[in-house]
């Protein structure tokens, strides 16, 4: 958004059709955010039903002996009676029974417990001076908060946030961890509760837990829980988390980013990807910490759980200003991309292509960096063989390339045989993508015009069957597609007779100048 004036002037000079690159970039981001949101919702839903095993046995929460006896399940009515008695032991037993009901995998009676009015009692137990009952109540509330938004609200309205924050610094690690977990669930509900958790002052005690010289003294389960809760404090937009809190958390994230544990690294990278998923000033805050080079390192870690979020974070950063993009390039990010574009997971290929599409939307020197990193042939490969979503991203990368690149760069792109796979994708059903491809073709022709090679381009397009496809688009139901294809045909492919006479001999003499033009001083195609 806050692209500099100078930049704007440059862009306007380039984007002849009044479409500036920033606009292009932004729109891309919107689309992606939308997709991600949908996916995330889906994810939450799935996880909650499907569940993962509890963290590794090293967690201090893993007390063993307590629940061996009395496997019989209590009814909610029995629990109410127990909780309301004046006897601490009875209260403890009832709380534990409630916790057990809520911990069973199928159909935990969350709503039943809520409507029985147990939440205020449970919250009150958090403040008792009895670690066992604190722990059981914290666990029960954690599980209630893990449910739907309404269920989480019930916990928040019971006044649980300040109570949990007090427990974060409990001397008993298992209670502390449970409180951290509960706060994570509450903050994970959305920006409103996230900000409430922050407002109640959760950040400082959470960070204080990690303010120790040696993180490896913690069990990995404990550390992952804290990291996950921190990542939830960074999560969600509209609004983004308060800037002050972000700045407070970031140094710790930088530290965690150097900690050698897959789960911790993954959650830290996710946190960074949330923080960079926003306006440029938010990206700037992250860039300023100087963690990019570590992120780039992690891009090459080969650990899919880490690569995915770090690539997301890098991808978000290059949606920012040209300077921010430059910072990513300076950290050597492009050297990781050959591996990413050829990654066995198509999702990674897609995200990598998306990232490149935002880099090609930048300065021509940045486009040159992509060329120098040898990525263009790989992009063409992806365009040819990637899955459809990846191809769509690659199309954007190509179109941005053709609109921002110099004539020389566009010539190089054509020499890398981009035309055929690009034109092949015109047979897609998605009119948006078709328009983007037609844009790219138009841009390539503009470059061709400048060096007087438009006719050869026509030949090449016709040779690979592209002309037929463009012609067919004139009967497309989408008005814009129809117009764009008509424009191309009228401008470059009409006047058959005239061309027939002069093109045919030319073809036989220096035919496919495109292939051999590297040896020539001009940019002949």
């Amino acid at each position: 958004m806050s692209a500099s004036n100078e930049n704007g002037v440059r862009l306007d000079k380039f984007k002849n059709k009044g479409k500036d690159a920033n606009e292009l970039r932004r729109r891309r981001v919107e689309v992606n955010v939308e997709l991600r949101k949908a996916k995330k919702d889906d994810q939450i839903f799935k996880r909650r039903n499907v569940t993962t095993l509890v963290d590794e046995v090293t967690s201090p929460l893993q007390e063993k002996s307590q629940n061996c006896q009395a496997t019989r399940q209590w009814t909610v009515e029995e629990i109410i009676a127990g909780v309301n008695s004046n006897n601490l032991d009875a209260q403890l037993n009832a709380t534990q029974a409630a916790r057990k009901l809520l911990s069973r995998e199928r159909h935990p009676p969350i709503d039943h417990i809520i409507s029985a009015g147990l939440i205020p009692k449970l919250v009150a137990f958090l403040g008792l001076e009895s670690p066992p009952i604190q722990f059981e109540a914290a666990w029960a509330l954690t599980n209630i908060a893990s449910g739907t938004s309404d269920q989480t609200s019930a916990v928040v309205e019971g006044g649980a946030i300040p109570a949990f924050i007090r427990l974060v610094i409990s001397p008993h690690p298992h209670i502390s961890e449970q409180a951290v977990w509960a706060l994570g669930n509450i903050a994970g509900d959305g920006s409103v509760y996230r900000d409430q958790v922050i407002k109640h002052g959760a950040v400082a005690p959470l960070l204080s837990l990690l303010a120790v010289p040696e993180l490896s003294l913690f069990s990995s389960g404990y550390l992952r829980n804290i990291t996950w809760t921190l990542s939830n404090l960074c999560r969600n937009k509209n609004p983004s988390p308060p800037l002050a809190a972000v700045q407070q958390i970031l140094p710790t994230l930088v530290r965690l980013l150097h900690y050698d544990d897959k789960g911790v690294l993954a959650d830290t990278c996710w946190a960074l990807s949330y923080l960079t998923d926003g306006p440029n000033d938010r990206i700037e805050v992250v860039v300023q910490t100087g963690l990019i080079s570590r992120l780039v390192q992690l891009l090459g870690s080969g650990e899919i759980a880490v690569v995915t979020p770090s690539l997301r974070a890098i991808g978000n950063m290059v949606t920012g200003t040209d300077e921010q993009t430059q910072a990513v390039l300076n950290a050597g990010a492009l050297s990781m991309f050959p591996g990413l574009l050829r990654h066995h997971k198509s999702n990674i290929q897609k995200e990598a292509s998306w990232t490149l599409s935002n880099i090609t939307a930048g300065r021509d020197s940045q486009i040159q960096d992509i060329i120098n990193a040898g990525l263009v042939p790989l992009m063409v490969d992806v365009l040819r063989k990637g899955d459809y979503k990846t191809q769509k991203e690659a199309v954007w990368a190509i179109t941005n390339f053709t609109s921002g690149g110099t004539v020389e760069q566009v010539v190089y792109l054509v020499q890398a045989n981009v035309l055929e796979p690009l034109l092949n994708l015109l047979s897609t059903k998605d009119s948006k993508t078709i328009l983007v491809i037609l844009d790219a073709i138009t841009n390539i022709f503009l470059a061709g015009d400048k060096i007087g090679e438009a006719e050869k381009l026509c030949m090449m397009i016709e040779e690979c069957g592209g002309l037929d496809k463009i012609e067919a688009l004139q009967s497309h139901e989408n008005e814009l597609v129809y117009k764009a294809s008509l424009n191309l045909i009228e401008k470059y492919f009409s006047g058959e007779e005239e061309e027939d006479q002069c093109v045919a001999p030319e073809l036989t003499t220096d035919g496919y100048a495109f292939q051999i033009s590297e040896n020539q001083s001009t940019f002949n195609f």
Partner: protein
Amino acid sequence: MFITDIRKEFYDVVVNQRVALLVSSDIDALCACKILQALFHCDQVQYTLVPVTGWQDLGTAFLEHKEQFRYFVLINCGANVDLLETLQPEEDSIFFICDTHRPVDVVNVYNDTQVKLMIKQDDDLGVPSYDDIFRDEEEEGGDDSGNESDGGSEPSGKRRRYDEGEVERRIERQRATREWEARRREILFDYEQYEYHGTSAAMVIFELAWVLTKDTKDMLWWAIIGLTDQWVHDKITHMKYVTDIATLQRHVSRHNHRNEDEDNSLSIDCMRISFEYDLRLALYQHWSLFESICNSSYTSCNFKLWSMHGQKKLQEFLADMGLPLKQVKQKFNSMDMSVKENLREVIEESSNKYGMKDIRIQTFGIHFGFKNHFLASDIVHAAAALLESTEKDDSPGDNFIKALDCLSRSNLERLHGGIDLAKKKLMAIQQTVASCICTNLILSQGPFLYCYLLEGTPDVKLFSKPMALTLLCKYLLKAFVRSTRNKRCKLLPLIIAAPMDVEKRTVIVLGIPPESETSDKKNFFGRAFEKAAESTSSRTLHDHFDTSIIELKMEDRTKFLDALITLLS
């Protein structure tokens, strides 16, 4: 789902609708189709009749008609494969399936909305119970929890904490799930292992007509032909045949009863159906007795007519009956009345002496007019010959119509044409059987017998058709069992292959179960063919509604067979 009340759940539903009638290419299906057509005419139900020869055909027919039709009636096709998976219909398409193919696909059985099976419950179906093979989604949860964490997916926003006991229970449950799945595989394997046939479609539809009290003698006759088709093409056990014959006999007596007394006696031109113990001699009333004996599988195998010895025995047999050769070799119709009078008894008596105790078979015949007398099996042979006619200018569609036509009494010319074709076909079969036996073309491959008809064999084109090939295969196996001295070989199933499409270089391959008096007619080749094709990635087409008939690329024949041998050894 199975329909329990065929009238309410099927007929009342379609009676005011337009119906697409998809009919498979076999005689039973044609008969069922005739009955249904007659009913539809009664009630002025609009329908479109589409003949289908295989799954691809069925798919195309469905695609072509799904826009205009909501109701599809499938006759002798569709039951043994997951139909919704195959056709991918919209949710409002409804399929009524009247099919003899077993086992019925379990998804078809348990689909309550779109698939309605018109299949008699007293057939020995043995469908696994729902709980043994399906589980509700929810119970299956947790399946993929193990690898979730390395998928690179975004962490969930909220997490619930589980009991430790819960973890153990989960493991226990996963183990139980795995066991359940293993058991499910086993149950399904047992259930789907063998292919066989259930109650004739024509009989099922006839029962509908009866329930509607709209049954006529013509319909009853078609039901009889449908059942007889199952016997002629050896699809059902002898036990099943006899039981169903008894059912039909009750209907026949009911119909005949109406016209018993003098006042109501029928004109000679009207059709009369009669139950008969007739001879297992194909088409003998429309042929000469001699030729019928030579070209009927039962007699030909018993005498071993492919050998000199057999021919001699036949002569002895004829002499024993005391029938002059001249009489025996002339047209049955022209035989002396004196000879014909107690012909059946004479033949039966001598047959008993020659070890042919089962020469008699329970069947039905019809009379109308003075000279028209047909046995049910005559009609089956004629219709089958028309349906699979290999005359040059006949398209499958034409053949279907012709075969359908010959079932009507009004179309005697067509019927006689069919009988002539059927004679040619039976002779071709006998000649091929004789040459295969005499030149030892049947090879033992270990777990099964194998016979390959080379291109250029006489009449080989005829055997590119499923029914003709089936008949040949059955006769061939019977003949082989009679001729071989190898006891082990007598117990083996037979695979036969014949050129199918010379241009496409494909062969038609068919497997049949071992030949025995007590055979349950259950065929395991469908499954075996699938597996062998899969494991060798042979280019096969499993298009036929009988899974034991496939089309195979000629070049892949060897590796396919090798795989089959390994699989079945």
